[in-house]
């Protein structure tokens, strides 16, 4: 390709840097805390949320642990550190005390979700998806509760779960990701405001897809949500998570913690479409997406699968992982990470094989455009006792234009000789030749580009649940479609 970017590639760049469509703000009245963090703020947060003492203690302990920890710097990204003293740790729309139906939700907030294409009203909803909507710090509404309850499934906000299901929360909260696991998990444990809790009882197949939509609206608020999913023996569930935020010049922090627990023969499929605001073309504003996600295949024959489509955020540091403790358990990670403009993503997974005959699959597809930087970082560890285990990893990167970067950091270790680890990595450039080849066959430039990208991410998108795949395709189109035609 000539030194200047060819028209085709320029076109592709402009398609990919399509304006962010979810950047509006919603005008609602807030109940905020003063900025900054201290033990008093943490206690106050717990008090406002009317939490039991054990929860307050959990938070305070986490706060002190966090105070002693250092902010990590080992990843492949540079950014201004979040100003923890200038952040809101609790920001909730002023609301009525109890929401019994959609009619009680602030109409402005309802409108927000409608604009986002997330219908909260049950009759309008996709036939088989239950939604928990988290607006800034608070869960606004959870739909289809009764129907789920009939099956014995608990799906509610974390705040509610702490009050209604304390035994389950005490047993499983921080059981997969200890408070001190890392800087951001400690911070989250101290100040998490809400999130979703999901419990699938023994031998139950959750009758519908479960879904949470996260929305950061308030300018200075960090979002610290906490999600916990427990699948009992023989239970199965598919869970979807979507995220958007308005455009602000300031960076906002999103530091979530997600824990999954799968007991014997249980199956958890967790899918994410992350489309937080990515900042402008000069790298101003956007979300810091510093999320800890980890699942444990605790029981034999259990199965945990992470699928993610990461298109948003200024900086993403995220490694959804699986601890394969039960014999014959299976962990999977399917990821598409798209970075454009000045976005930076350092994302990947960890597969920790502890049980015998455990299997893991990693398929990671990174697409970098503009001046962005996209890194895959993955660890596969097969311990001494995990005999007969297998891992298969594919990390493919696609570059669009000349100024972006793609990096792969695989860490592999196997402590026994009966296990096998396979790792493949490729880097390709969407070039003139591919576009020309398809155009020569009569296909328009826009369709050619979309074909190339779709072909590249196909192996991952086919893992998404149907309801989400449609949305994922739309989102990719928004990112990819542009002025052509």
């Amino acid at each position, binding site marked *: 390709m*000539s030194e200047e970017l060819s028209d085709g590639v320029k076109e592709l760049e402009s398609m990919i840097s399509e304006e962010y469509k979810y950047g509006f703000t919603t005008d609602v009245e807030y109940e905020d805390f003063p900025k900054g963090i201290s033990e008093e703020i943490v206690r106050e947060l717990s008090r406002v949320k009317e939490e039991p003492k054990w929860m307050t203690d959990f938070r305070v302990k986490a706060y002190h642990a966090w105070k002693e920890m250092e902010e990590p710097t080992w990843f492949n990204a540079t950014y201004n550190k979040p100003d923890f003293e200038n952040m809101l740790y609790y920001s909730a729309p002023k609301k009525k005390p109890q929401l019994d139906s959609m009619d009680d939700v602030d109409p402005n907030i309802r409108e927000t979700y409608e604009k986002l294409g997330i219908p909260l009203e049950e009759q309008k909803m996709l036939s088989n998806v239950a939604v928990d909507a988290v607006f800034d710090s608070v869960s606004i509404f959870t739909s289809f509760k009764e129907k789920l309850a009939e099956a014995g499934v608990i799906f509610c906000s974390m705040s509610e779960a702490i009050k209604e299901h304390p035994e389950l929360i005490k047993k499983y909260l921080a059981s997969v990701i200890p408070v001190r696991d890392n800087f951001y998990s400690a911070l989250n444990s101290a100040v998490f405001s809400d999130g979703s809790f999901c419990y699938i009882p023994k031998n139950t197949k959750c009758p519908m897809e479960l879904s949470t939509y996260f929305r950061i609206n308030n300018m200075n608020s960090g979002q610290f949500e906490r999600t916990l999913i427990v699948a009992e023996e023989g239970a199965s569930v598919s869970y979807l998570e979507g995220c958007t935020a308005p455009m602000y010049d300031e960076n906002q922090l999103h530091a979530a913690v997600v824990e999954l627990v799968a007991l014997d023969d249980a199956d958890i499929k967790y899918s994410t479409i992350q489309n937080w605001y990515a900042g402008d073309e000069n790298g101003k504003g956007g979300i810091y997406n510093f999320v800890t996600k980890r699942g444990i295949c605790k029981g034999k024959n259990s199965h945990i699968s992470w699928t993610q489509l990461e298109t948003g955020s200024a900086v993403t540091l995220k490694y959804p992982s699986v601890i394969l403790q039960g014999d014959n358990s299976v962990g999977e990670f399917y990821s598409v990470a798209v970075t454009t403009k000045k976005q930076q993503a350092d994302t990947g997974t960890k597969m920790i094989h502890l049980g015998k005959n455990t299997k893991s699959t990693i398929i990671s597809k990174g697409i970098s455009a503009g001046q962005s930087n996209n890194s895959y970082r993955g660890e596969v560890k097969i311990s001494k006792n995990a005999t007969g285990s297998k891992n298969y990893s594919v990390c493919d990167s696609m570059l669009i234009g000349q100024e972006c970067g793609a990096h792969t950091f695989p860490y592999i270790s196997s402590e026994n000789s009966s296990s096998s680890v396979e790792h493949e990595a490729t880097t390709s450039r969407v070039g003139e030749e*591919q576009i020309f080849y398809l155009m*020569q066959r009569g*296909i328009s430039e826009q369709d050619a580009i979309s*074909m190339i990208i*779709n072909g590249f991410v196909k192996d991952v998108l086919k893992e998404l649940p149907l309801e989400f795949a449609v949305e994922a395709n739309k989102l990719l189109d928004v990112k990819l479609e542009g002025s052509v035609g």
Partner: protein
Amino acid sequence: MLEIKNLHAKVEGEDIHILKGVNLKVNAGEIHAIMGPNGSGKSTLSKVVSGHPEYEVTEGEILFNGEDITELDADERAHLGLFLAFQYPVEVPGITNKTLLREAYNTIARANDREELDPIEFEDYIESKLDIINMKDEFLSRSINTGFSGGEKKKNEIFQMAVLNPVLSFLDETDSGLDIDALKVVSDGVNKIANDKNAIVMITHYQRLLNYIKPDFVHVMMAGKLIKSGGIELAEDLEANGYDALEKELVLNGEAQ
């Protein structure tokens, strides 16, 4: 059908011209062969005619059925019935041959106000073309050229040609990298596709291909120009004496610059 007049072209942003005044006329029902040494501009000619964005036409014009197509995009030229069998077919992982061809076939049909084929009709249509190139069914559901052997890639180009049924096809070194069996299959395919309504321009380095596909005209390209035209005997002459001998002869006659 095709008329190239005094065509000058260079890589966009660079100074040196690769095509320096090409003239060529191709009528329906004709098969042409363009031969020439490496770097003479043969492949560039096929890319410029099919609208590769890397090249800039600085002088001259390309007329296709009387219409000046010099400024058209590659897809628009394809809609008119122009096809290029690539020297190095490009891999597009994740998209099957069938998907590409259905998209391509229907896009071209739409552009020409012809009826599109629905997936079932297209299935029948595409299956009927497999024989032309001795292709197995499973070929259709493989990703475009991905992991194909060199021979399979070349076969796939001719298969695509059969499906899209172009008016004018440029075959850019379709014979290179083929063993003798594959060469026979590919040539048979081309011969089956050729008829009195379409035309084919083969670009090749070697005379070998011309034993299988008989051209009506042979042109020799050197230094960005077609310097000599004739019948099949010209190719035989080249095979026997090489390009150097021809060049010397032309210099002696004052015909080459």
